[in-house]
């Protein structure tokens, strides 16, 4: 369980994250989504006590990170996979971490085995591929067998087999009742992995909902309707089983989910309601995500899947 309350971080004049309030629950994979530069990494660093918040608090299992009695037994972290000293062997990298956490040396061999690096454990990390570095970072996160796991962009650099592997791992960790947080700027990765999503853009939380709801709301077909008789039309469409909300364009605009455009037109005609605009919209998950975050000045194009 991770709880943030009014969490803000300013670097000079830049508001890296602003007034974040959320709960991250155990037992599910929570996707932490946002374009590069949206504030995901800053938020993770605030959770871990690496950066001090300008305002607000964040706790893990009810405590601030630095007050945890045995942090590595409670929280496992994959930050940038390149936070390693390239001249050390994988085994020695895990050894110093295990020692710092007061963990038995046997855990090093266990996690090496778990991530499939046992055969190359004696090799220098500098010669590892990005995929191998990611596996090493995940091994480090698993060392303390923690109840909370934070993974920053874990699929970066992994091949399809590696991506499948980590997906299975994340789901298994969550099924074991752990709190699992995965940050990503890749929407389609999250779609298959996360149960719950937090979406952040320009440092602000813009969605905190189940993946199912997020997908239905933003990715499904919807119909954009503009009518001078919006109130009556709305009631009519809702009676017919549509899910209607106010459209983004102000007076008379409706967003309709669950009814095809032809059906909406026919229903309106039967009741003599005027329709000025009737547009089917098929936003993909990524397009919806882009729409949500398009104001972000630091935005960079998402990879095409």
């Amino acid at each position, binding site marked *: 369980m991770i709880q943030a309350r009014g969490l803000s971080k300013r670097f000079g004049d830049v508001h890296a994250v602003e007034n974040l309030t959320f709960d991250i629950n155990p037992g599910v994979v929570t996707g932490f989504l946002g374009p590069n530069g949206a504030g995901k990494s800053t938020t993770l*660093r605030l959770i*871990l*006590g*690496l*950066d*001090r918040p300008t305002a607000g608090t964040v706790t893990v299992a009810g405590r601030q*990170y*630095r007050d*945890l*009695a*045995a*942090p*590595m037994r409670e*929280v496992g*972290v994959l*930050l*940038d996979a*390149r*936070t*390693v*000293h*390239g*001249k*050390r*062997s994988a085994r*020695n990298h895990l*050894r*110093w*971490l295990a*020692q*710092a*956490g*007061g963990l038995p040396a046997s855990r090093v061999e266990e996690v090496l085995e778990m991530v499939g690096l046992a055969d190359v454990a004696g090799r220098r990390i500098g010669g590892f591929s990005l995929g191998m570095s990611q596996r090493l970072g995940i091994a*480090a996160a698993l060392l303390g067998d923690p109840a909370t796991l934070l993974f920053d962009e874990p699929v970066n650099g992994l091949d399809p087999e590696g991506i499948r592997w980590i997906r299975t791992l994340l789901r298994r960790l969550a099924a074991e009742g752990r709190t699992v947080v995965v940050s990503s700027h890749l929407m389609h990765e999250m779609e298959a992995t996360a149960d719950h999503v937090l979406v952040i853009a320009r440092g602000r939380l813009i969605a905190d909902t189940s993946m199912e709801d997020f997908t239905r709301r933003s990715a499904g077909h919807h119909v954009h309707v503009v009518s001078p008789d919006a109130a009556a039309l709305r009631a009519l469409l809702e009676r017919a089983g549509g899910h209607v909300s106010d459209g983004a364009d102000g007076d008379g605009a409706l967003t309709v989910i669950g009814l095809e455009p032809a059906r909406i037109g026919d229903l309106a005609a039967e009741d003599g309601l005027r329709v000025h605009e009737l547009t089917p919209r098929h936003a993909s998950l990524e397009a919806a995500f882009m729409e949500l975050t398009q104001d972000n000045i630091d935005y960079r194009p998402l990879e095409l899947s």
Partner: protein
Amino acid sequence: MTPFTAVLRSEWTKLMSLRSTKVALALSVVLALALTALLAVVAGATYDDWTAADRQSWEPGEASLIGGILAAIVLAVLGVTAATGEYVSGTIRLTFTATPRRGRVLAAKTLVVAAISLAAALVSNVTMFLLGQALFGAYGLGTASLLDGDSLRTVFLGGALGPLLPVVALLIGLAVRSAAAAITAVFAFVVGVPILGELLPRWWQDHVFDYMLFAAADAITNTDASSGLAPAAAVLVVAGWMAVLLALTWALLERRDA
């Protein structure tokens, strides 16, 4: 809470699992011996030309430890990189995630750097002394015995002070986070301050310069050092300096985003 010995072991593993650490330790001894041997050869070869005053002031014990300068430089660089290597590679974030109480990391790093530089300084001092006396003897120069009171003090007390510079280098490295800046700062501190001291008027030398860290450290071992501090007072001054530097570094680590 995870015991402090765990953090200590971790820092030990971190430093000793790098080949560069072992290379630096070996290099500190080898370079020290090389410079001492060079001095002995030069002294031996020119001895016939020495004036009576030169021969009078010949101190074989102290002369044999000349190579300690090179050992100190190598160990200072080791101290700097023990700190800056973490920032360059980014492992400092893992270090502070594993041990969020940053004062414990600072204490463990300080102890580990102090321990290995103490060992290296003692080894190089003893071997320099023995090599120096052997070579001086071979050239017919005056020699000293390791068991003399003066020799014991310069070799072992000097060795015991060996960790001072590497630890200062570590603290500066942690403070400035860049190896180039830290090495520059260390040598400005070590070389620049004494030069400045020489240029200052007498009053400044007696009342300020004597209390500078390395002038005071010098006064602990060197009975006829330029510093006017008594050894006991000098020990207190050095301890005070180290306490202040440690406290400043600690405050900086705690306040700063990692």
